[in-house]
């Protein structure tokens, strides 16, 4: 399965990065390609996946495609301690992890992205999107 990792350091405490990651309403502010977000619309409860939760469903509308809803899930796992965001249309999985730096004045943001083989052709584009999004996230957190 194609995958890649990106990381950066934000000049902001972890809680400011955390608030941006945990609030889908703020995604359009930093996630490249996300135009709007609406709550609800996830695959919900009938799925047979291995995750033990169904929380955090919302719908993302990509830039330039207001009629193309992409259901998303913001998944959390106590055991793994990280935020996972998946795109249910194309099965892309994004996992974010935060580590405090400089005594909490800065935060290292790491993201791991897994792309299903059927979407492998998107690897290069997604790498670029995430790299730019990461920079946006770090900048926005520092401005908070």
């Amino acid at each position, binding site marked *: 399965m194609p995958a890649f990792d990106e990381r950066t350091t934000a000049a902001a*405490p*972890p*809680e400011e*990065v*955390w*608030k941006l990651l*945990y*609030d*889908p*309403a703020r995604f359009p502010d930093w996630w490249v390609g996300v135009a709007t977000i609406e*709550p609800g619309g996830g695959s*919900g*409860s*009938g799925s*047979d996946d*291995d995750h*033990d*939760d*169904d*929380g*955090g*469903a919302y719908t993302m509308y990509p830039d330039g495609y207001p009629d193309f809803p992409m259901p998303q899930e*913001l*998944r*959390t*796992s*106590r*055991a*793994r*301690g990280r*935020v996972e965001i998946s795109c249910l249309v194309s099965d892309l999985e994004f996992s974010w992890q*935060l580590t*405090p730096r400089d005594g*909490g004045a800065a935060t290292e943001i790491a993201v791991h992205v897994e792309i299903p083989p059927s979407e492998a052709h998107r690897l290069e584009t997604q790498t670029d999107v995430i790299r730019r999004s990461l920079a946006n996230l770090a900048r926005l957190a520092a401005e908070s």
Partner: protein
Amino acid sequence: MLAIRLIGGLEIGRDGTRIAPPAGRRARALLAWLALRPGRHPRSRLAAQFWPDVLDASARASLRSAVWALRASLGPDGGAYLSADRETVALDGEGLTVDVREFDRLAAAGHFGEAVALCRGELLDGFDDEWAGVARESHLARLANVLGALAREAEADGRGAEALNAAQWLLQLRPLDESVCRDAMRLLAAAGDVAAALELYERTCSRIRAELGCAPSPATTALALQLRGGPEPVRAAARINAADAPLNRPIDSQPLVGRGVELGVLTLLWQRTHYESGGVVVVAGEGGIGKTRLCEALRAEAGRFPGAMTATGTAGGGAGAPTPLAVWSEALGDLITQLDRSAIDPAAAPYLARLVPAAAADLPAAAPNPASPDTPVLVGHAAAEPQLERVRVFEAVAGLVIRAAREGPVLLVLEDMHAADPSSLELAVYVGRRITRLPVLLLLTRRRLPPRPDLEAALAALRARGALRRSLDLTPLPTATVRQLIHSVVDLPGSTVEQIAAASGGSPLLAVEAALACSHGGEPVLGLAEATRAAVYRLSPAARRLVELLAVAGRDVEHADLLTLPLPDPERAETEALGADLLRARSGMIGFRHALLAEAVYRDLPDPERARLHDSFAELLRRRAGGPAGGRRAAEIARHLRLAGRDTLAVGQLARAAADARAVGALPEAAGFLHEAVAIDPHDADLYVELAEVEAWRGLQEESDAAFGRALELIAPDDDGSLISAWLRRGRWLRGGLCYPRESRRAYRSALDVLDRDPSADPYARAEALAGLAWAEAVAGDPAQCGWLLRDVDLALGRREAPSDLLTHDIGFARAHALIRSARFAESYAPLVAASAAAGRAGRPDMAYSCLINAASAAACTGDFERALDFADRCLPLVEPNGLLRPCVYAHSARATLLRRLGRLDEARVACRAEAEFAERVGRAELEGLADHDRGLLALACGDTADAVRLLTRSLELGAPVSRPLARLWLAEALVRAGQYDAADRQLRETALEPVAPGDFPDTLVARMNRVQGLAAAARGDRERARARLTEASEGWRRRLGNAATGDSYVAALIDLGRPPLSSLTEPEWELAAIETELAALDT
């Protein structure tokens, strides 16, 4: 024709040809049980009889599987005698013969000789179950009556030899019955063998003296005199006196030497318990240093206090895993005999009986719960979740000790705790914490080595609670004291005493044993092994064998049991061994004076001999296990069988040991026994299913899955009964032991897949699977499916069949969760209340509570807090009188939360207090953390910020089962209000680094954090930042308006926290109003 023989072991004949009995242990037992009892038997009774420690539904499923296996083994013709319908099972019909039924028929018809001829051995030989033991005892009693009748009939008819045979057989069954003895003596004399008659008289007299402590009756003595033609011989009297003498051994009656200071300290602590407070005392020291002797001296001191009760248990004994809580069983058995029956709580009796089966007759009968007359709950009648059962057992023991303390001061001595099982240590902590204000002294002895971390942890827990009053370390005795000790025991030359004292290293045991060895002549022996060996070699072969058997036993053995050992003259052997200074008699038990002596003898035994002795002792225990006083010996029997090299036979005992362990909630020990069993027999699917269930109840998912996977590999693909039973059990434990509803859904689907192979098969199993699947769909799948599945339950049962109470509960519970999942919270009340009532009727207050606390949480989701409080209030009569302590904590936590939300702060404070008291009784840190959490939130609501900070900080440290990110945010708010802004900032940072789960309602956390940041900024005077953050918080809550609680988030919290959410439920309108007020305050 089907012929079943049960006397002498199970045999089956069909049309004159012998056929193999069923392969499964349970199926064989079921066959034997049914063969013993003509007529129809309710399935519920059979299920409870053979699977007493599993949930009712699982037990019924296992019964179905066993009936299926039984029918398959009897074949089409034989199976015709097995008739089973929905409610009952029977083994009957024309052409069926059962030897024990025939025995009773012949005896009733007066054909005594023919009846006796059927008895070629013991009834149900090879069956270890308790019911089999009871049946065996009953049959032996009936056989004794028949033999008596036969002897009388034959004597009257002049058939002297037949009469004598019957009388001698009867004497084996009733060795203390003097009338039987006299009959046999008369018949022997009549046959011309007066010497044998007199020898019988002597043997019986000795036995009566030893076991009953009295002289033979004048009638028996007169008969002996008549046969002798003179006065009673001196020789017999001398024997009897000799047998009595060792019961007061000189060494044990010697004054305590060299431990006067320690005894003084312990006596003082004992006296203080009467007037001040009780607690725990530890006496530590290496083996042989004098711990046991010191405890005995203290017991003697304690016994002088009017009304005092003293009881002792000793842990360990031999290799292998001990029976869980065995040390407690022994001590409690001792204590119960000193208590008046009225002093024992009837509700605790069933749990005490599990621990001390031998004392069951001394316990009061359990009664329905009088505290909740409107609630049909039967106290202690049904197995609840193992964790709850464990607390109930612990609570029963603590209650017994507390009640005993009302009668008088209590000294409980638990010896050799370094060898105790983990559950015994836990119980010591549980009881130790509860006796600090009672006249109870719990004295624990231990060795320092090898290290035992869980023992250290237990003592640390007692110390932390202020329950550990004192630790005494026994050091080696000074040489001068050792000399004094030796002189107090034997007279030896001064040089020998010096030599022994110097070599003893200050060990009183070694010094005494070496001195005793020297007192018999020869060179001084300076090692314990050498001294013990010398003492053993001086014994006659029979006495030596007795000593070796006791060494193999690894513990004290009842005097009466010793007499049944395969020795030529056990009484004489016992007398001699007691006189050899190796053994001692105490409270009807015979054992080594010290465990190190037993170990020394054991080490000297050649391997083959050791194995043979283990086999003999296993057989003795097995015979006892069937009797009324023989319970909880399976682990011990298994250990002896394994040491005898009879691993295959040990498997059944290990399975039973696991069931015994489950019955007292000792899950790790149960898993240990099952692991041992499957290591011996890796092809028994039943064992693996059992292991999977136990691991699930321990919360070990991977281990449970691995065991279950192995079971599936072993079950034949066409063995529908076993497959269905296994999948149904898995479905249930995945919604109880492990909260894993998605996997539970898969299990129930798999059960249905197997059931679908034969649509007409087992409607009850189908109904159970459908109801389980309905719940799993409601919680973790598609709730819309729930209704269809429940309709299929009705179809499966048919119109004439009403579901059982447990199934009614399952149906209501599933229906309610489908409604909750769909956010139709108010509609869930009715099915939850109905499910609660059904669970109550089924004797499951734990399940009834679960329904009502869900109803409380559902009502809170609608904002109807008064209604929610009413449901929470109704939980209390279910949990408090039934000793469901953890649910007690949760119920009071719910009440505290609701009362706080309703602004009834004084009542909330009372609820918090009750919550804390129950949490303290459970003794689990996380529950005490929960109580701190609730008290912290109440303090915050009351404006007591210092207390709020303290309590919320501690709740996080204790790992309270609450949303940690949310608790940190509340703590941060308390810190802001207390003016500790930097500390508040640190908590906000910690919040961001806490793992977040769905049950934390993650979509609300950002708004909450913004609010606290806003409050902190306002407190620091940074109005601009405060306004920005509070506005962001306001926008966050505004987006959630009208979406207060979703069914998904409710269920996620339920799975995460293991209980319905209450304190973390969100109210956007309420939160928004608060923030608007805070924003407005910025402008003033």
